[in-house]
Every structure is written in C-alpha cells, then in structure tokens.
C-alpha cells in the first residue's frame, strides 16, 4: 500500500477543513481530488506533504508514518504546491540543482536526472534563464521538474492547472499520464478541470466540506465538475 489514510482530521480554529477522511491507494494509481472551493483539497495535500500536521487520524506514505517519520516521508514525496512557487533569484538549472542537493542527490545521479527531467518537461532551452523571467507555463514546468527530479514514490500536485491556458492544460494532462511520471508511482492531484480528470485520472475522490463524499473509479465521460458534484452530493 503506497498511501493509507485513516480518519484524518484537521481543524483551523472552529473550521474543520478535513473531517475523518479515510482512503488508501496503491502505486500506479492517478487519483484526482475534486470538490468545491474550501472543500479541503489543498489541506489534504498539505497534510500528506507534511507541510501541515493533522489534529487526529493516521496516515502512512510508502510505509512511513506521516507524523512520526516526517523526514522519511518528505524524501519519497514530490510535491507541487498551487501556483508552482519558485525562487525568482535563481536560474532554472541552478534551482533544480539546489533542490536536488537538498534531497541529498549525488553529483552524477543529479546531472543525469537533471538532463532527463529537462528533456521530459521541455526545459532544455531555458535552463540558463532566470526564473523571474519565465512565463507562468514555464514556471509550472520547472515546478513539475522539481517534483519528479528525485524519482519519488508519491507525487502530489495541488491544482496544477490553476494558471494554465488550454494548450498548457492539454500538455500537462499528457505529462501526467506519461510513463515517466506515473509508472510505479502514486499520483494524487487536486483540480477544478473536468478535462484533466478525464484525461489523466484513474480514480476520483470527491471532498465536500472536509468529508470524503465519493470515492470512485467510474469517471463520467461527459458533463462538467458541477454536474458530477450534484450527482455525488445527492448519493
């Protein structure tokens, strides 16, 4: 089992962002986390990435307990937060090298991976460009490269299409489903884009007010996310 989440609860003051969320997932799955704004999607990904602690519940990632082995979890997780935040003062190659060193990647292995992910994410022409000069789509590609650089077991993407146009959205869906990203890994991504769910997900988790309202592999072939939400809410 790559991911095992049991009764995960997280509160912010009086607001309950996650309310007893329970699910498990295996390697090879691509899970879309969907729900209305404020449903708890970002909080779930932040808890699973160890950025936020939970108030109660248990979770393990690749066999490591999320709360007692946070350091080990971080080394097997690749996380791309919403908006792909990057250090604007660095160049692309320099940033990726810094992130690789931070994850204890060695020189030769890091160079090889840097070459591979740059080719895969289309970064080769902009490796020497300053991050502050990149477009939103290019920044996003750098964020994706950073997340997969250390070949993690679990990939977490928080609303990866937040600032993407139609072409970038299609290209990202293709990247997400590519064997380089998803083979032997668990991919968990939150999104508001029905097209991305249809193109890349093998399973959908629907969150409503912090609760897991639906967990299905029957992905509707038509309709918008709003239609799906109405259907799942009524069940």
């Amino acid at each position, binding site marked *: 089992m790559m991911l095992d989440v049991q009764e995960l609860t997280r509160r912010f003051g009086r607001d309950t962002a996650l309310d007893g969320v329970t699910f498990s997932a295996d390697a090879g799955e691509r899970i879309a986390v969907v729900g209305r704004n404020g449903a708890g999607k970002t909080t779930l990904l932040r808890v699973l990435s160890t*950025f936020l602690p939970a108030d109660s519940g248990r979770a393990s990632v690749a066999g490591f307990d999320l709360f007692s082995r946070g350091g080990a979890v971080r080394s097997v997780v690749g996380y791309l*937060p919403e908006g792909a935040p990057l250090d604007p003062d660095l160049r692309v190659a320099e940033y990726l090298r810094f992130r690789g*060193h931070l*994850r*204890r*990647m060695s020189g030769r292995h890091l160079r090889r991976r840097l070459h591979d992910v740059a080719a895969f994410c289309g970064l080769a022409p902009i490796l020497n460009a300053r991050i502050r000069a990149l477009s939103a789509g290019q920044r996003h590609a750098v964020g994706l490269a950073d997340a997969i650089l250390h070949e993690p077991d679990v990939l977490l993407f928080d609303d990866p299409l937040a600032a993407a146009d139609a072409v970038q959205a299609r290209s990202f869906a293709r990247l997400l489903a590519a064997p380089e990203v998803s083979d032997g890994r668990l991919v968990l991504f939150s999104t508001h884009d029905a097209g991305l769910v249809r193109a890349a997900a093998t399973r959908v988790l629907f969150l409503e007010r912090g609760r897991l309202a639906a967990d299905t592999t029957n992905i509707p072939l038509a309709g918008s996310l709003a239609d799906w939400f109405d259907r799942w809410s009524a069940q």
Partner: protein
Amino acid sequence: MSSPALVLFRKECRVALRSTATWCVFAACASLVGVFFVFALREAEGGPGTLPELFCMPLALAAPLPAAFFTMGLFARERHNGTLETLLTAPVSDAQTVLAKFSAACLLSLVALALCLPVFHAYLRFAAPPPAWDPRALASGWCAIACATVLWTALGLFFSLLCRHESAAGAATLIAGLGISMPVSGAVELPFDSALAPYSLVAFARGVADTRPLFVALSGAAFLLFLSVRVLESRRWLPSASF
C-alpha cells in the same frame, strides 16, 4: 553529497553575494563607520580615548545595520514568494532550516564588519606622525562587537519569521537592536541594557575583558534561535493564510 543545511547555507550566501544591494550595504557600512570614526577622532583630540576604542564605538553603533539587512528577507521573502511551502516539504528539518539561514546571515554581517577594518588601516597609513596602537585591543573590541552582531542576527531572523513584509522585519530589527543597545538614560532599565550598550563593547578595546556582554549576547542569540524554531513549527498550526 552535502547535508541539506549546508546546501541551504551555500544557496543563501550565493544569492546574497550576487545581489548589488549586498555590496551597497557593505560599502554603506564601511562609509558610515569611516565618517563617525573621523568625528570621534576630532572630538577626542588630545583626549583619553585610545585609537582602537575610538574606532570600535562607531563599529558597535553600525553593527545592527547589516544584521537587519541580511536577515529581513530570510523568511519574509520565502513567504512572499510562496517558497516556504516547498522548503518545508523538502527533507530538511525546521531546526536545520533556521540554523542554515542564521549562519548565512551571520557570516554576511560579520563580513560587513570585517570590511570596515580597512577604514582603520587607511587612517594609520595617512596619519602623521603614525599613531601608536595595540592590535590586540582592536581584535578584542572587534570580537566583542561580533558577538553582539550574532545577537542582532538572531533577533533579525526571529522578526523575519514573525513579519509578513521584509521591510517591516528590517525596521523591527533595527528599532529593537538600537533600543536594546542604547537605552534612554533614566528610563526603564533592563538587566542587559548596560551589557549590550556600545560603551560596554568598546571597553574590550580598552583591554577591559568583561565577559557579561558576551554571555548576554550569545545566550540571547541561542534563546532567540530556539524561539525561532518553535515559531516555525507553530506556523504550521495556523490557518493557511498565515503562510
């Protein structure tokens, strides 16, 4: 393969040294010390102050400036860029993050203080007749001021964690640093006031090695670093808007 803390330390130093603003701060600090050193020399003409003592007074007054500049963006900028989230989900502990950033800012602040020494050297070169002075007194005074700088750096890092904007963090560090080191006489007297006052630090350049300022500065820095780690941990419990 390097430890994540060392990687973070090197990155902070590299980014800072690449910035024009850093070199401007080095130059501004040396200029400020130079100007006030000249004033001090004129004021003390024929007076009792020794040369290292007259040089260490403006150095002690200028010490909070580089510390405030090099620490103000450490965490506030990460929060502004949103990169705190990627940093705190990398396999590096909160304590390592705080220590790496503190060490980098501390090193840069000490470099700023070291770059003020050529001002003293320039005076010796052009003074006629060449004045007599004791290098050990200058070294002793500089080390005492360096210890105080370690405290100002820890204070700046702490404010950078608390403030959302780096300018606010820098201003808070300067106000707190100058407020602690230059208490208004007759006002509320804190136990560490006199220990961290510039005249106490400058006493080292007179050959008076009082360990109290060093103890206050270094233990205060250690306490502030401990608080900073705790603040960073506690930030995870606040609503996402706080990041």
